């Protein structure tokens, strides 16, 4: 069953598009990770799905129900990217109030159980106004799951948390998935996404530019590599022929004296290029192959 489906979802501010016609499908039981630079439109997208901001155009459905729908809101849990808690309420008061708002009354014991899962068990009677940033973040996660929702939106759930807390939240997210929950999360932490997510979407300038499993994305980027060559001077008569031939082998050809850089899709083309240079009576002195780093995979600008 489909947990999230969007069709041509758009958001503009004053005519400036921030989210541009996103079509996305997330299956139930997935942990879907959304990556992108600041301002890429991740939070705007998540805020539209959760009813925080109305979309400019397009449709979306959550758990098979066309949104925004009040009944489906009771079946989702949301941890917004930025929100202030009710300063005068304790953690238990927060959970009781917000859970009741979702149509589910919870006992103090149930609240304590959830607070223990996020590592807030020793601060349950403290008012949220006195919480540290990390504690607020944890309570934000707790309130998103207190009413046992089927679909959980987590906007940067671990940013600003210490290493131990991050591990605790990761364990919780995995446990939630095992219980059949669907999790849609955004993050800047590449290792976190790699570790947790079953599928990843990369967003750039309001559009999803890449989508797939971690292996699919790696495979895609590994097939692209930049080759840098240092060679002897190319005989004048051969230059034009060699450059034309190189452009047919790869792309993004950059020539600087006797240095050359080219992007190819298959490593077998390296040998082919060396042979091509030899045919044109040019020696190769050095070959460097540059594969994309993990960071480049996610923050690829091209």
């Amino acid at each position, binding site marked *: 069953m489909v947990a999230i489906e969007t069709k041509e979802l758009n958001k503009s501010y004053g005519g400036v598009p921030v989210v541009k016609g996103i079509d996305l499908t997330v299956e139930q039981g997935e942990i879907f990770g959304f990556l992108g630079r600041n301002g890429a439109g991740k939070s705007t997208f998540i805020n539209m799905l959760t009813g925080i901001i109305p979309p400019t155009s397009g449709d979306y459905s959550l758990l098979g129900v066309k949104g925004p729908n009040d009944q489906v809101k009771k079946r989702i849990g*949301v941890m*917004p990217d930025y929100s202030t808690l009710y300063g005068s309420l304790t953690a238990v008061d927060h959970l009781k109030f917000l859970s009741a708002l979702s149509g589910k009354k919870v006992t103090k014991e149930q609240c304590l159980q959830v607070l223990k899962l996020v590592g807030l068990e020793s601060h349950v009677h403290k008012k949220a106004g006195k919480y540290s940033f990390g504690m607020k973040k944890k309570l934000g996660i707790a309130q998103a799951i207190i009413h046992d929702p089927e679909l959980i939106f987590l906007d940067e759930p671990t940013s600003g948390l210490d290493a131990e807390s991050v591990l605790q939240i990761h364990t919780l997210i995995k446990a939630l998935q095992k219980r059949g929950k669907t999790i849609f999360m955004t993050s800047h932490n590449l290792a976190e996404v790699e570790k947790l997510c079953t599928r990843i979407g990369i967003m750039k300038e309001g559009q999803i530019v890449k989508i797939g499993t971690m292996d699919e994305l790696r495979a895609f980027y590994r097939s692209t590599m930049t080759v840098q060559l240092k060679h002897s001077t190319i005989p004048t008569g051969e230059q034009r022929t060699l450059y034309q031939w190189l452009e047919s082998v790869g792309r993004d050809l950059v020539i600087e004296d006797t240095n050359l850089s080219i992007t190819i899709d298959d490593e077998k083309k390296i040998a082919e290029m060396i042979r091509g240079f030899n045919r044109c009576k040019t020696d190769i002195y050095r070959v460097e192959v540059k594969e994309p780093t993990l960071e480049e995979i996610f923050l690829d600008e091209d």
Partner: protein
Amino acid sequence: MGVIAQREFINLFKGIKSIIIVAILLVTAYYSAKFSNFFLLDASMEFTPKEAEDIHLFGLLVLILLFGQLFVMGLSHDSINRETHERTSRFLVTRTSRASIILGKFFGIWLFWFVCVTIAFLLTSIFSKKFDVFIFSQTMSLLTFQIALTILLSVLISRPGVTMFLGVILGIAAPIFGFWIEFTQNAWVSWIKFLTPYYYLSREDATFLLILLMAGIMIVIANLIFQRREC
């Protein structure tokens, strides 16, 4: 809606501002009842038999007429915009409909004033041995209007500081303007009196119910605006 109304209702009873306002209501009720005979004996003041009969309740109605908007705005000017300003509204809009939020806030505030005014009227009835449902209904209809206006302003204006300032200005200016427009002979502006609750309260018939209609319209407008508001 019920959860939001309950929270709003309980929150209003917390804090010094609400304690002061409840005390003012009770003190006014007590003294207007206690000294009602003093006004009746004052030859310079003329009352109809009906007014003389209900003199002990007029103190309360006049208090709400003159200071009701100030009281309501003072307590609830930021009922909506505080939530959007501090982004706690994100917890609400992701869990329930925006209409439920507006109605929940409205009914929570309304219930607070209903309880306060009922206690004040009951206190007065101890002296008068009578509970005047008509004046009570008039008082509540005026408060309903004032609460709806407060909610509308809290949706329209996003900054709590501005609604606080506006609340004080409006709380003072509205009754002055309302009474002036009620008695002005200027034909160009006198029609505005039909848009204020003061005109309907001066009539001793059921037209005061139109005030509830006006309140309803304001809540509908507030809801329409809030539907498009980012939280």
